[in-house]
């Protein structure tokens, strides 16, 4: 298991390659990357605040949950904080398993929980000023799937 919470940018492709390098017991690798999206061409930047200490604890707990529910060879979580440019990766998860069903379900679950249970808050800056991103009802509802 690797969990990194960092201000620095990361290279999604390089991280994905390193994640399964030299392994022969893995048949299925799923990755999810969250990217700063400019919905209507007005976003200047995104800023992510987090709660140092609790963030790492909350993510470790979510990863422990997925490892107990699915047969996983490895799990990777990287989440940035600080100021991010449009188009930049915000975070990624990757799951490695013998079979694809476990890898898909674990990545999906990780994302649902990281979204609503890890202490990160997004603030968007547009020409109109700054606004905290509101949680979506569907994100809380998604947790009930599991």
């Amino acid at each position, binding site marked *: 298991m690797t969990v990194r919470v960092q201000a620095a940018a990361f290279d999604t492709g390089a991280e994905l390659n390193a994640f399964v390098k030299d392994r022969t017991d893995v048949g299925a690798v799923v990755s999810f990357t969250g990217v700063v999206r400019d919905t209507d061409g007005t976003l200047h930047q995104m800023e992510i605040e987090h*709660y140092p*200490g*609790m963030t790492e604890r909350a993510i470790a707990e979510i990863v422990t949950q997925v490892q107990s529910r699915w047969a996983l060879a490895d799990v990777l979580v990287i989440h940035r904080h600080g100021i991010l440019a449009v188009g930049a990766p915000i975070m990624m998860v990757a799951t490695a398993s013998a079979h694809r069903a476990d890898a898909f379900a674990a990545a999906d679950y990780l994302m649902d929980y990281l979204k609503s249970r*890890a202490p990160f*808050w997004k603030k968007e800056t547009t020409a109109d000023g700054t606004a905290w991103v509101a*949680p979506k009802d569907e994100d809380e509802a998604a947790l009930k799937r599991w």
Partner: protein
Amino acid sequence: MNVMYFAWVRERIGLPQEEVQTEAVTVADLVAELTAREDRYAAAFADTSALRVALDQELSDFDAPLAGVREVAFFPPMTGG
């Protein structure tokens, strides 16, 4: 007790954390005590249904007792991922 504020709660109150001397028994008692202090606290805590609370870095709720707790954090629902 160390009390921390994040995101718009931090912005409304105007500071990221402070040391609070309190006899509050529950989180709700602490919220009532802070709300009574100044308008900026009242503004931040106006609708606690829009807030979350963590006790010693674990998500908790407003009915929870504060006995033994060293760090309380208030913040809006998370928007990670």
